[in-house]
């Protein structure tokens, strides 16, 4: 019984996002699914203690140039382990792939010109009587800073994953229901326990690399599928904890979580 409840909950957590993603993006979803699969392969290699597993990150910019920053950020977490020769090869590959992807990355990035934001910025500058003060506080970097900040905080918003960004959905996004909403409990427990988890290095490195790399993209919708695995694993840490508690806790949780998650899935399929 306990195993059945645990595995059903696990399947529901892991199936939600990719399933709904495929439902919503039938034609152009393959690249982003492949990117998430690259992380799955990396995780497999990491668990097998394969020393050079991080080389899989180099595949990501080749899949989509917008992921160019992922390998740069992710490698920082393995800095202490990495050998000089590996680093050189990694860097050469990265520089080589960036030759092909830089222009496309720029087109997708927050650095693309934004005339509307530029007009607003000029207006702000003109409103401050002291021009030097105005330029200190409101300059061209504001546009990138604001977009970067908005992207980072969208990725850090639990409502993005459990409530389809409700109550402040992003107009041009799909606003997907990425996880059953009650999984937020598992996520919070998992997040708290992550520091003790043996898995923390891989989860934290891929999560932060994913968040920082997609924060560089103008619209991170669909690209955020790269966060699927680390966030699902955090939920799993929480789920495992609940199932180590006395039966009353996991029975009560399953009693709420399973029917409500199935109902939510049905609601989305019927949509």
């Amino acid at each position, binding site marked *: 019984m306990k195993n059945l409840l645990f595995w059903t909950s696990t399947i529901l957590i892991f199936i939600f996002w990719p399933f709904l993603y495929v439902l919503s993006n039938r034609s152009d979803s393959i690249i982003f699914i492949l990117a998430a699969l690259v992380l799955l392969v990396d995780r497999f290699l990491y668990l097998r203690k394969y020393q050079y597993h991080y080389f899989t990150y180099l595949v990501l910019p080749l899949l989509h140039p917008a992921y160019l920053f992922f390998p740069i950020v992710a490698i920082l977490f393995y800095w202490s382990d990495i050998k000089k020769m590996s680093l050189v090869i990694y860097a050469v590959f990265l520089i080589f792939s960036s030759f092909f992807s830089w222009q496309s990355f720029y087109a997708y990035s927050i650095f693309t010109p934004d005339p509307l934001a530029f007009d607003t910025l000029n*207006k*702000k500058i003109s*409103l*401050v*009587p002291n021009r030097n*003060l*105005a330029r200190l*506080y*409101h300059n061209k970097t*504001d546009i990138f800073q*604001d977009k970067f*900040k*908005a992207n980072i*905080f*969208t990725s*850090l*918003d*639990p*409502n*993005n994953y*459990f*409530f389809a960004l*409700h*109550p*402040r959905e992003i107009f041009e996004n799909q606003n997907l229901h990425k996880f059953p*909403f009650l999984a*937020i409990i598992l996520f919070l427990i998992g997040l*708290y326990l992550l520091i003790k988890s043996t898995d923390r290095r891989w989860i934290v490195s891929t999560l932060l690399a994913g968040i920082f790399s997609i924060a560089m993209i103008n619209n991170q919708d669909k690209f955020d599928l790269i966060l699927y695995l680390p966030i699902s694993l955090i939920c799993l840490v929480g789920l495992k904890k609940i199932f180590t508690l006395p039966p009353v806790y996991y029975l009560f949780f399953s009693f709420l979580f399973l029917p*409500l998650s199935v*109902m939510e899935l*049905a*609601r989305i399929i*019927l*949509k």
Partner: protein
Amino acid sequence: MKLANKYLPAILLFLAFLVGAFFRFYKLGETPTGLYVDEASLGYNAYSIYKTGLDEYGKSFPVMFRSFSTFQSPVYSYLLVPLIHFLDLSIFSVRLLSALFGVLSIPLLYLLAQKLYPAPRTNNHEPITNNFALISSLLLALSPWHINYSRTAYETNVALFFLLLGSFFLLNALKKPWLFLLSALSFVISMMAYRAEIIIVPILVLVFAIRYSGTLLTNSKRYLLPIFASLALAMVLFLPTIQIMGTSGFQARSSTLNIFASSGPHPWGYQEGTGLLHDLINNPQILAAREFISLYSSYLSPRYLFSLGDSGPRLPYPGMGTFFVWQFPLYLIGLYFLIKDKYLKDFKYFVFTLLLISPVPAALTRDPYSTLRSLPLVIPQILIISFGLVKLREILPPLSSKLKLSLVALLLIYSSVRMFISIFYLNDYFNSKFWNYGWEMVVEDIKKLDPKLPIMVDSSRGDSYILMMFFLKYDPVLYQQENFEVPVADYYTSLTRSDTKKLGNITVKSIVWGPDTDEVEQYLVADYLAMSEVQIRDHNLTIIKEISFPDGKVALRILKTNPKTR
């Protein structure tokens, strides 16, 4: 040197107080430019009470002000009466009360933080400067969220002050039991000042009772009488509010906004359709519960706190969230260490109780991330950020304390200047249209018009009558004679509203094209949406005056009809 150290906390607290006062009082009557209708209603009803003892509808000293059938909490208007006596009715005097309570909250938070987080002592048992309380009060002084509500006339800021005062007395009442009386008094005022506190205060008191149940029970003889006296006082003071809680007037606002209400729009996620499956997935209780959790979670989400801010048009200052971005890592550090801490139990209880219950009233309503309804949340979040800063100072590599202090000072100065620019240079330009800009000028201009002709003011996009009355300082006696909305007996029960208001030769109603624009010779006052250039040309209206927003676009127009030439 020792003398300087002795007085340093007092000097720094005074500095925080000064900085806080500057951001709350500077240009108080000028920015935000304009006056929101709720502010005008609070102010005019106080003026009416001052002049006649009756509110605008002729009700003597109401328990809640009917206002626009939204029923405003009464404390703000009653506290305004002495200010109106000395300063007359103006934007400044109406906002002054909120600013005063905003500034007083700064030293109050210092005292509360000192109580919750006692100063550590050296090996010789001498107290060390309590940086935490100082940092907390300084961060409150510079909080964009708190400043926003201190510079505008909203009841929530007054309620927050009394909530803090009640909490301070409550914590001190364990040593001096008669302080329970002052605590009860403060809490009741807080509940009568803003409705969200009606949910927050009882839970806060309950958690306090559970936390200190051991102390209270073991010394029951000492505490029994003060506690009973306090409860009796609270009941007596709150009884009039309890008596009207069942009326449709009191419930009007909550029943339209409450996500659990059976009336109103469908909950978020509702899908049209029929059949058993649709009935199952559209279960209103489940959908409402899901919406509640999503709204509740948004109040604790970094996206709303440090990036988006309030969704309302009037509330966030341009380019600013609820907190400064640099406070985000401090918030995480503070939260982490507070959860881990085993010694600061009183502090943890207070912070987590307020952190978890403050979003509840706001999350029960449909509006996304309402900083107005969740204002008490600013306190635990500032305490957590301050705790994060104190902890960061401890865990940082051994830099000199002067360098650490300089870094913090630099960050605060940089943020203060950024906020200054946003409040005093950018806000009026970008947000003036949401603050009913221009009505004060309209009132000045209509005084110069031909007194023989009637004036019609359009009210199709809001309660402009209250703005007219406010800026005209219209005699409440005359207004009560010329207008009738409900009998006094139905004041709290009837929600009917009169569409037309008479203020002497001024009529405030929705302008009807044709009868009002072509058939009667009169002046018309309307905003830019009601009277476009095409309509002015088509109806042969003469523009007497145009009042423009700071960005140059037309805000309001005074026009004259020309029925004879048509």
